[in-house]
C-alpha cells in the first residue's frame, strides 16, 4: 500500500514536471547579427494525401477490431493492447490530429459557412465512430480514442465518484458541446482543438497553460477514471445519446446475471447500474407530482436559457477576432484604454473605416444573439431533461452496464462468474477439438 502511494506520487510529479519542462519558452529571433549565417527558411512539403486515407482505413480497422474484441471476444487484455496501439498511432504518431472529437467543429462550420468545405477524411473521422456507436456502443471510446487511451493508461487506483456528483459534473460536457458548436458555427474558434488538454503531450510541445491543464487531467486521472471523457468531452455527449440506441451493446455477463454482486464496484467509470427495488409507496404520489412539475418547467428552462444565451452575445461574440478588434479600436478611439495593440495598429495601417468595422462587429454580434438563443435553449433543455430523467422510476432486475455511460473498456467481464464458466467451456471445446 505504501509502495503504491510512492509510485503514484512519483508518477504525478513526473507528469507535472514534464509539463513544466516542455513549456520552456521558444527563443525570440536575434536582435543583432552575430556573424553566423542564418539558414534559409524552408517550407516543409505538405503531408501526402494518401496518408490521410490510410488514417481513415486504420480508424475503420481499429473500430471494427475493437467492436469484435469488446462484444465477441470479451477480452480486456486484447482491448488494452489495441488501446495502446491507438494511443501510439492516433496520439503520438499522428499527433492527435485529425481526431473525431474536434472534427465535429469542421462539420458545423461547413453547415453555416458556404465557403468552407470539409475534407472528406475529416467527415469520415467524425461519422465513422458515430455509426459504430449506433451499432456496437461506445467501442470508439474504449479503444480507439487517443484522449481516452492516455487517461485509461494512467488510471492506477480508481476512486468512485458518487452518482449525484457525476450527474452535476456531466453538465459541463453539454455546456462545452454547446459552446463549441456556437463558436464553430460563427467562425470564431475551434475551442475543442484550442483547449485539447492532451495534444501537447502527443506533440511533446505546446502552450504552457494547456500543458498544465493536461498534466492536471492526468494526475486526477490516476484516481478518477477518465475525467475528460466523463465530464468534459463534447463528442462523448453525442456518443452517449447514440449509445442508448445501439443495436448491440456491452453486457457484464455473457448469458444470465446471477446477482452475485461481484461486479458491483468493478467499473472505475461508475457505469454499472444495480437492480432496482420497488420505490417506497409513500413517495409515489410525490414523485408523480414532481415529474409533472418538471415537465411543465421544461419549456420555462428552455426559454430562460435562451434568454440568457442571447443576452450574453456581447461576451460570447468576443471569441470572434473581428469583434475583439472592433472593441479595441472603439475603446482606443474613445480614450477608454491607453496604448494600442498590434491588431489595432495593423487595422489603422490599412486605412479602413472604423465605422465599417463596427458594423461588421454588430452583424457578428447579431449572429451570436441568434446562436445564443439556440445554445441557451439547448442548455435549458439538457437541465430539464436531466431532472426529468432523475425523477423517472426505472425498473432493473439485473446488474447492467449503463447504455450511455459504459465506455466498453471490458474491465467488468472478469468479475462475472458466468464469464469464467464461458471461458472454461471455450477452453475445453478447443482442447477437445
Amino acid at each position: 500500500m505504501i509502495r503504491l502511494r510512492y509510485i503514484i506520487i512519483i508518477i504525478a510529479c513526473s507528469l507535472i514536471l514534464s509539463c513544466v519542462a516542455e513549456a520552456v519558452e521558444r527563443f525570440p529571433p536575434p536582435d543583432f547579427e552575430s556573424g553566423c549565417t542564418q539558414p534559409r527558411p524552408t517550407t516543409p512539403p505538405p503531408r501526402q494525401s494518401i496518408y490521410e486515407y490510410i488514417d481513415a482505413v486504420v480508424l475503420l480497422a481499429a473500430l471494427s477490431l475493437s467492436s469484435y474484441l469488446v462484444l465477441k471476444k470479451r477480452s480486456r487484455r486484447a482491448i488494452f493492447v489495441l488501446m495502446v496501439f491507438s494511443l501510439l498511432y492516433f496520439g503520438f504518431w499522428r499527433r492527435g490530429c485529425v481526431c473525431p472529437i474536434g472534427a465535429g467543429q469542421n462539420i458545423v462550420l461547413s453547415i453555416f459557412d458556404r465557403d468552407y468545405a470539409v475534407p472528406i477524411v475529416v467527415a469520415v473521422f467524425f461519422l465513422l465512430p458515430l455509426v459504430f456507436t449506433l451499432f456496437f456502443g461506445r467501442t470508439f471510446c474504449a479503444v480507439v480514442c487517443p484522449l481516452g487511451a492516455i487517461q485509461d493508461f494512467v488510471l492506477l487506483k480508481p476512486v468512485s465518484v458518487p452518482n449525484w456528483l457525476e450527474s452535476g459534473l456531466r453538465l459541463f460536457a453539454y455546456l462545452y458541446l454547446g459552446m463549441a458548436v456556437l463558436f464553430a458555427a460563427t467562425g470564431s474558434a475551434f475551442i475543442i482543438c484550442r483547449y485539447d488538454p492532451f495534444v501537447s503531450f502527443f506533440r511533446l510541445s505546446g502552450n504552457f497553460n494547456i500543458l498544465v491543464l493536461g498534466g492536471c487531467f492526468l494526475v486526477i486521472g490516476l484516481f478518477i477514471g477518465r475525467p475528460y471523457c466523463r465530464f468534459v468531452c463534447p463528442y462523448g455527449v453525442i456518443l452517449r445519446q447514440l449509445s442508448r440506441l445501439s443495436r448491440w451493446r456491452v453486457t457484464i455477463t455473457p448469458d444470465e446475471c446471477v446477482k452475485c454482486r461481484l461486479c458491483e464496484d468493478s467499473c472505475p467509470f461508475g457505469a454499472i447500474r444495480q437492480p432496482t427495488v420497488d420505490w417506497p409507496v409513500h413517495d409515489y404520489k410525490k414523485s408523480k407530482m414532481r415529474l409533472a412539475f418538471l415537465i411543465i418547467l421544461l419549456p420555462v428552462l428552455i426559454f430562460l436559457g435562451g434568454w440568457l444565451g442571447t443576452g450574453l452575445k456581447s461576451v460570447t461574440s468576443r471569441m470572434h477576432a473581428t469583434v475583439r478588434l472592433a472593441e479595441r479600436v472603439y475603446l482606443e478611439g474613445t480614450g477608454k484604454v491607453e496604448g494600442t495593440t498590434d491588431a489595432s495598429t495593423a487595422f489603422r495601417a490599412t486605412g479602413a473605416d472604423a465605422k465599417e468595422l463596427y458594423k461588421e462587429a454588430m452583424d457578428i454580434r447579431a449572429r451570436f444573439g441568434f446562436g445564443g438563443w439556440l445554445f441557451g435553449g439547448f442548455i435549458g433543455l439538457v437541465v430539464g431533461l436531466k431532472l426529468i430523467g432523475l425523477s423517472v422510476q426505472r425498473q432493473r432486475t439485473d446488474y447492467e452496464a449503463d447504455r450511455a455511460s459504459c465506455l466498453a473498456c471490458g474491465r467488468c467481464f472478469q468479475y462475472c462468474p458466468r464469464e469464467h464458466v464461458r471461458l472454461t467451456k471455450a477452453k475445453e471445446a478447443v482442447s477437445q477439438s
Partner: protein
Amino acid sequence: MTLLIVNFFQTSVTLPKWEEQLQTLKDEIRGKPDDQQLLSQIRQLDLQIRKFRVHRLDFSYKGTFLLFSGVAVLLIGVKWAAIYKKKMPMPQLRSDLQDEQTRKAMFARLTVTIGAVVLGLGALSLLMICDLRFTIFDFQSSFDNRKSEISKNWPRFRGPSGSGVSAYTNIPTSWNGKTGEGILWKTKVPLPGNNSPVVWDDRVFLSGADKSNQQIYCFDAFSGKLLWSGDVTRISQDAKQAEVFEYTGFAASTVTTDGRRVYAIFPTGDVVCFDFEGRKIWQKNLGIPNSAYGYASSLEIYQNLLLIQYDQGEAEDGLSKFIALDGFSG
C-alpha cells in the same frame, strides 16, 4: 527528474537576469548610437542568451522524452504487478436499498439544480457587467470635454491654441545655463532639430533628423531620461530633393500630440504617428515639398484631425495645400 528541475530553475533564474541586462544596454545605446564598444557588448550578450536558450531547450526536450518513456514503462509495470495482487471483491451487506435509491436520486437532482442555478447566476452577472455598445463616437463633445485637459498641457508649437500662453502661473521665468538656475535636467538629443518641445503630463516630445535619419523622442519630464525613440522611415530616398537651408535643418517642424498619440512631419514629406509607448501607428509621405528654405510649418490637432499647412513654391504656383488627415489611420 532532478536534472530537469535544476534545468528549469536555472532557466527561470538566469535568463530573466541576462534579459534585463540586455534591455538596460539597449536603452543605454539609444542615447549613444555611435558607441561601438557598447554595441559589441550587446551583441555578445544577445548571442550568449540565445546559446543558453538553445542548450536548455535541447536539454529539456531530451529529458522530457526520457521522463515520459520512464513513466510509461513504470505504469505498464505497475499495472502488470497489480494483476497478480488483485483481491477478489467482497460485497458488503446493504441495509435499506429502497431508502438509498431514493436518496441517490434526490441528491443527483439537487446537484443538477445547483449546477444550473450557478450557471444561470454566472450568466446573469456577465450580462450585467460586460456590455459594450458601439455608439458613433462624437468627436466634438469629446474634444470639448478634453479642452481643460489640453489647456493644462503644451500639446503643440506655442502651446494650447498656439497662443503661447500657459495655464500655469507658477513656472520659472529665468534660466541660467552656467549656474543651473531654473534648470532641472539636461539631456543630449540624439539627432539635431530646431523644433520646440511638446509636453503632455510627464512626457516631453521632440523630433530630430539629419540627411539620412529621422526620429521622434520621448523624454521623462521629471528626469530627462530618454524613454523611447522612434525611427521614421525615409520613404523618399532621393535625399537631394529634400535639401534644406542649413539654419532650418531637417527637423524644424514642432510635433503635436492629442494626449494619446504624437504626430510629426519632416521636410522629406514624411508624416508619422506614434502612440505614447513608442509604437508606430502609421506613416505616409505627402511628397517632398518645394521649399527654398526647407519645410518648417508645425502641426495642429482639431478633434480627430491632424492639420497640416503644406506650404510650398510661390503663391502663383498654386502648390500649397491645407491638409487634414485622420489622426487614427492617417
